[in-house]
């Protein structure tokens, strides 16, 4: 027994490097899909903006200066409002970039939590089968019978509006869908020889589920994760627009739109700019997912 463990230890680093290399090779394949490239570029743009937000020479996103300044107007302190200011006199460029950071961080975190929960549920239901499957599937069906936004509204109405509530809402709404996908994949994978080999070796069920099954289900999950990140961005922005999202005054794209639309008659840029930002980011996720799917169907 001890010798076999040693053998695995020796081989492990080599195998992992190959796995990583393979992953990057797959990632590089995105170059072959123009649609995917456009999507990746859009997302990359916003990610770079979000990362650079603290170092860029921006005004404080919550600082109240001159209201309703046009695009490129001169600021009182000698600077420029590159994208103008909103109804309260806050710099729109700064609010959009800080808003990008906020929506990307919360969306990634919420999607990640939803994935952890959904994958555990799915692998449990698929591998164990029987009662575990019945129970997990029934729970998933309950939450799938709620329309997405309505589930979010109930959760926000009970827990109050905050970033953490958004994470809970997205988890409840997305995890059942992830569970269904993973369950389907696991049902297929668990008949493979390497699973029988692991069972014969005497591995514990959790080892088989987490180490043998999940990593092999990753292909379709990457496409889904990309789409789901887009949905989560939409969900966060929609909740913000309904007044149930991340609380003000910190910039939130949905809330910016909600506040700007009634005033759009005399300050169109205050509503078009956040709308365009949101549309471009979501389009990015959708196009990247399309590109990834196209490539994964090819091999």
């Amino acid at each position, binding site marked *: 027994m001890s010798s076999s463990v040693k053998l695995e230890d020796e081989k492990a680093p080599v195998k992992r490097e190959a796995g990583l290399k393979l992953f990057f090779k797959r990632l590089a394949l995105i170059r072959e899909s123009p649609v995917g490239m456009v999507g990746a570029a859009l997302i990359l743009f916003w990610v770079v903006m979000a990362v650079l937000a603290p170092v860029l020479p921006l005004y404080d996103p919550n600082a109240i200066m001159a209201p309703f300044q046009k695009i490129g107007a001169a600021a009182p302190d000698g600077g420029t409002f590159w994208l103008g200011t909103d109804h309260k006199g806050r710099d729109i460029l700064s609010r959009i970039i800080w808003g990008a950071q906020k929506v990307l961080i919360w969306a990634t975190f919420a999607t990640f939590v939803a994935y952890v929960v959904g994958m555990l549920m799915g692998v449990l239901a698929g591998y164990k089968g029987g009662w575990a499957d019945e129970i997990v599937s029934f729970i998933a069906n309950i939450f799938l019978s709620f*329309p997405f936004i309505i589930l979010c*509204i109930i959760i926000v109405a009970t827990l109050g509006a905050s970033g953490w509530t958004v994470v809970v809402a997205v988890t409840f709404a997305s995890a059942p869908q992830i569970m269904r996908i993973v369950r389907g994949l696991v049902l297929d994978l668990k008949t493979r020889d390497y699973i029988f080999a692991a069972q014969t070796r005497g591995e514990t069920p959790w080892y088989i589920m987490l180490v043998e099954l999940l990593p092999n289900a990753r292909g379709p999950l990457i496409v889904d994760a990309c789409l789901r990140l887009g949905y989560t961005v939409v969900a966060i922005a929609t909740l913000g627009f309904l007044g149930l999202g991340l609380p003000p005054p910190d910039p939130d794209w949905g809330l910016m739109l909600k506040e700007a639309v009634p005033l759009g008659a005399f300050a169109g840029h205050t509503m*078009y700019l956040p709308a365009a930002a949101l549309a471009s980011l979501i389009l990015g996720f959708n196009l990247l997912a399309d590109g990834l799917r196209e490539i994964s169907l090819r091999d």
Partner: protein
Amino acid sequence: MIVLAGKRLLAMLLIMLVVSFILFSLFESDKMAVAGKVLGAYSSLEQRELWLTQNGYDAPFLERYLQWVGGALHGDFGNSLQYKVPVSELLADRLKNTGILTLVFFLIMIPLSLTLGVLAGMKEGSWLDRVISVVAVLTTSIPEFVTATFLTGVFVYSWHLLPGTSSMTGGFSWKELILPVMVLVIYDFGYVTRMTRASMAEVMTSQYIRTAVLKGLPYKRVIMRHALRNALIAPFTVIVLQLNWLLSGLVVVEVFFAYKGFGYLLVDAALFGDIYVIEACVLVAVFVAVFSQFISDIGYTLLNPRIRFS
């Protein structure tokens, strides 16, 4: 067939029961919080306790739940805290408005997306197919309130053609219905179009279509008589299942245009903390979602004799 329908109906009832229990536990398990919501944040402890006793809140939780379910089945959801009228009256009025919006939406979306989907699927890879597919992806990826923002900007603020809100305060108005319906159609038609296209494209490559073409039937007849019948089964399911998806969209669109429908009522109630209205609205929404799932399952089996769920 009847066995299948019975099984699905039973599952539907079970789901509704669990959902109603979750809702009731979420909003009414804490009695004091309920009394606080009803009487206001500044009511005294004695007032709250008196109110709870008067309204039968001293009964055990399960008994209260059963009473509440019984009331809900009769359409009695209590009184709205915000509007001080029975929830059922409020809901009936709002559901009627949402019904009108949904009906007009379906009357436009279904013919449009079926036509586009069939046109695209007839000749896979043609320029028409590519244009339709790209447009369908683009419009579906942009969320409703972003589309609504751009449309409002163009039609309301720039061209002054349409009203920017659809509250229908001056009676029913077609003009106020145009923008909400337009937003819903733009957001939703893409999905049905893509499903129809996929279904049509698959049928077009099947053996019996090739046979029909090879035996010299006119192309029009092959499409109308042979292809469409099978190609339209899948979109039927998608359109019915669309209802669940549509409900989320309706909420956003109604709030955006201040359209006095069911979604507006729900968000309004959530912001105010009007628990009885939230409960009623969510029950109705989940019922619609579950029921449409049921209809789509049964309809799919009826339409497609090759499929029989065991």
